[in-house]
């Protein structure tokens, strides 16, 4: 066998080490992207807070004229589900977690006979839903790792008009929330109607008046009409940013694990290779000794 196995092992070690270099590179890239994504998230918070404040004031002022734009619909008949995942894989269970929850949500609606449609963000969603035979109304991709406000706007321009035209009663978003560097949670949230502004519980008959008078230009119901699309695109941008940060975190973690695994594998293979080489050497020595012994015995036999 003379070193045949040794050669095979040597080649495998080289492959593992090359792979390790790649996973290490991915890990480092992801790590730098996390920081960037987190900064963008922090930079965005003041805008979202400002829009949410205005929304709360306008909604309180408009009271029940706000109508179906606010609150939680009791029995939505037509629901739109928006799933947000990544364009690329190599990020552990990140995509699978979101997609599985989205699928479960949609199947739940199907079982209840609720009319539903699916919109997806991220290339990974397309193949998943095609394989599961769930039709996707519209899909977006190409910006999951670095979404811009313009991207959020494009998605929102597809969704918001459907709601405003009363073609859907509720819009749910399934995505990963970035709570902290260590914690990301997959979650279904309601995007439309808008969440009830905090502190405003009873909108039934008398809207609770906030102390102090606020002027509205234009009047609050009209303002609300302009505000809704702006709020949705802002909320959506926030969700995209959180998803991007989570994606990079998941990728970094997955690639760190892969690098470690490659290390481990290389170590095991090196040990196997050394043993194989040792075996080969031992066998060779045995053959030489055996041969020499045979020759000597043959010579001895001749002498006699």
């Amino acid at each position: 066998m003379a070193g045949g196995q040794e050669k095979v092992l040597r080649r495998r070690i080289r492959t593992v080490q090359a792979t390790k270099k790649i996973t290490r590179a991915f890990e480092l890239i992801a790590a730098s992207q996390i920081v960037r994504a987190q900064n963008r998230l922090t930079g965005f918070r003041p805008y979202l807070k400002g829009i949410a404040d205005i929304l709360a004031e306008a909604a309180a002022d408009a009271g029940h004229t706000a109508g179906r734009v606010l609150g939680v619909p009791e029995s939505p008949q037509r629901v739109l589900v928006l799933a947000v995942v990544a364009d690329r894989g190599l990020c552990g269970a990140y995509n699978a977690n979101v997609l599985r929850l989205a699928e479960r949500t949609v199947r739940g609606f199907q079982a209840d006979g609720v009319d539903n449609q699916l919109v997806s963000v991220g290339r990974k969603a397309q193949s998943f839903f095609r394989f599961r035979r769930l039709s996707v109304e519209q899909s977006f991709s190409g910006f999951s790792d670095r979404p811009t406000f313009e991207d959020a706007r494009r998605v929102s321009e597809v969704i918001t008009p459907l709601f405003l035209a009363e073609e859907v009663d509720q819009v749910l978003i399934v995505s990963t929330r970035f709570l902290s560097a260590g914690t990301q949670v997959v979650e279904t949230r309601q995007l439309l109607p808008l969440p009830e502004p905090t502190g405003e519980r009873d909108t039934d008959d008398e809207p609770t008046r906030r102390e102090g008078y606020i002027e509205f230009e234009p009047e609050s119901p009209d303002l609300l009409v302009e505000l809704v699309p702006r709020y949705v695109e802002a909320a959506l941008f926030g969700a995209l940013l959180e998803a991007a940060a989570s994606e990079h975190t998941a990728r970094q973690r997955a690639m760190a694990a892969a690098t470690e695994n490659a290390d481990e594998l290389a170590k095991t293979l090196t040990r196997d290779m050394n043993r194989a080489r040792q075996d080969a050497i031992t066998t060779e020595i045995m053959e030489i000794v055996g041969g020499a012994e045979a020759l000597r015995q043959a010579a001895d036999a001749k002498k006699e």
Partner: protein
Amino acid sequence: MATFAASLVTPERVLLEEEVQTVFLRTDVGDSAYMPGHTPLIGALVPGLVRFQLEDGTEERAAVHGGFVQVEHDHVTVLAPIAERAQEIDVGRARRALDAATQLVTELGGTRAGTGDAGGETEADRALSDAEAAQRRAEVRLEVAGVIDSRGS
């Protein structure tokens, strides 16, 4: 002179955060100026120029493309999906964008007039409104950068 806090906030970052004497801008209702102690107000902005008069009397100019303003007794917050400060505007680029958009609007407008209005949002309608929006944005940028007066708008 009394001052109060003003900020210009976009989705990407807080563009400006200063103590100001007065903020000039235009809402749906018309041109307005806000000074410290103004009645609380929430307004929708019209794309255009926002001027912040700083403590020392100098002015910060910015272009906003839609958005909202929230005025409280002690602060003003301008929220804009897209905004840039006057000194950050690339005049050459805005000029080119304006020319391109204007040409596109004429082309699309021409073809659309030919087919007649079928009602409902078609692909062409969308392209046209996009081009018109781009045209308006470029105009606002040039106006804020202070170069459009000669051309008129």
